């Protein structure tokens, strides 16, 4: 369903993703792990047509994201690391917007929006502006939105970051149900090791732009002679703390969050 061969991305001399290859089968739940700045988000951005790779080949559901970007785009849904909703629109309008952009016919769109908003328990709040929503509600809405066009592949970039255990559990329950009923392939990145261990069929660990290990959680533990995935992860990637380069955009977002939090 997803196939990546010798994928590389360079930014002015710095290699963010270095010649990686992997495959994800249909209906599989695949976890992509790595320390900050390891190349997870860059890989997801390339797969989802937001970034052009420097070299290498990709295939999503039989389509090349670079050359057949529109066909590839129809094949996947995505929940980004940062919120990507329009705060000044209502939950329903955000869904409607997505449905129109993905050519979901009117009648079907109405039915699916109702079904999905009920599925993530936001139907009662459909006419509320998104800016009134909590972080968890926004995440749920993003998941519902990403599923509106019935994608074959669902990308989630650190979907549970900053959510409480209740919301996290509910989210994964939804996603597993989807994976079981619709055979949707799920590709996610996370920093929570127990989450990867519990949910994923297979795991790949990326560090410094290279995939350094892959297999089931048990495989990784065996390979490193450890008892938990967290220990296996640390054995593979070392204990030094990574500094993520902070762009001005992150500063801006952080500032904005501070301001909005202060207002509340």
């Amino acid at each position, binding site marked *: 369903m997803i196939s990546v061969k010798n994928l590389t991305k360079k930014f002015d001399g710095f290699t963010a993703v270095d010649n990686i290859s992997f495959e994800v089968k249909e209906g599989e739940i695949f976890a992509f792990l790595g320390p900050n700045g390891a190349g997870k988000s860059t890989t997801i951005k390339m797969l989802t047509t937001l970034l052009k790779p420097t070299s290498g080949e990709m295939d999503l559901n039989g389509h090349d994201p670079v050359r057949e970007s529109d066909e590839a785009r129809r094949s996947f849904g995505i929940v980004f690391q940062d919120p990507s909703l329009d*705060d000044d629109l209502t939950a329903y309008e955000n869904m409607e917007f997505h449905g129109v952009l993905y050519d979901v016919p009117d009648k079907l769109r109405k039915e699916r929006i109702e079904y999905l908003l009920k599925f993530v328990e936001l139907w009662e709040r459909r006419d509320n502006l998104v800016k009134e929503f909590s972080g968890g509600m926004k995440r749920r809405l993003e998941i519902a939105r990403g599923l509106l066009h019935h994608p074959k592949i669902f990308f989630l970039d650190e979907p549970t970051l900053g959510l409480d255990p209740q919301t996290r559990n509910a989210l994964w329950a939804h996603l597993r149900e989807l994976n079981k009923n619709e055979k949707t392939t799920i590709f996610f990145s996370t920093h929570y090791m127990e989450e990867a261990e519990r949910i994923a069929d297979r795991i790949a660990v990326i560090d410094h732009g290279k995939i350094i290990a892959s297999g089931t959680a048990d495989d990784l533990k065996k390979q490193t002679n450890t008892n938990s995935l967290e220990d296996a992860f640390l054995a593979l990637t070392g204990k030094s703390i990574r500094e993520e380069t902070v762009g001005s955009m992150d500063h801006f*977002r952080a500032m904005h969050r501070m301001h909005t939090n202060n207002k509340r």
Partner: protein
Amino acid sequence: MKKIYILWLRQIKRYLRSKSRIVGSLAQPLLFLLAMGYGFGSVYQKAGEGNYLNFLAPGIIGMSILFTSVFSGMEVIWDRQFGFLKETLVAPMSRLSIMIGRTLGGATVATLQGVIVMFIAMLFGFHPVSWLMIIPAILIMFLVSLLFTSLGTMIASLLDDMQGFQLIMNFLVMPLFFLSGALFPLDGLPAALAIIAQIDPLSYGIDALRALLIGAGHYGLTMDFIVLGAVTVLFWSLGSYFFRKIQI
């Protein structure tokens, strides 16, 4: 087509919902109309030029269109910072359609703003020579809006964050406004200023509005229309070109 419509609709909804933005963006034109319109009125009259408020109103309409459209175009930066741009960029549609939808939405909002300012100016004593001319005047307003929304989108595609915004306001938008003949007649200007006004596209927009609304143009309507059309096509193409290049 439907995709372009929903992109357009999104911007209209956002505009109508931000009451503070509407009120805020009307305060400045109002101040200009009151302070300058009444303040310079008697001097202008004594110079034998007639009613200054009537002369000024098209200039202030042009000003509010300029500010609103550049700002609408630059909302791309906003969407980029708050993530919504990604949602449109991963959707199965061409970057060109995204650009069309955004620009039309921004231009509609700016035109609306211009029309509101026109009616407010009427409350203060502005009277067009003929009510019929309001319709072509609104068309000109839309053309000017399209021109500057494209310019705003172009700038926004090249900037990473809002920090450059102040710079753009002070070194581009303000000069565009002050040197356009919004506040003074273009006849009998010192040569240097006349040339600068000639390369400022806003001059032609305001000149066309004056020709239609108060029957006193400088460059002539045909010239105004040709220049506005050509510059709009140019900025729009450049805007689409740079917008296509955005990578996140």
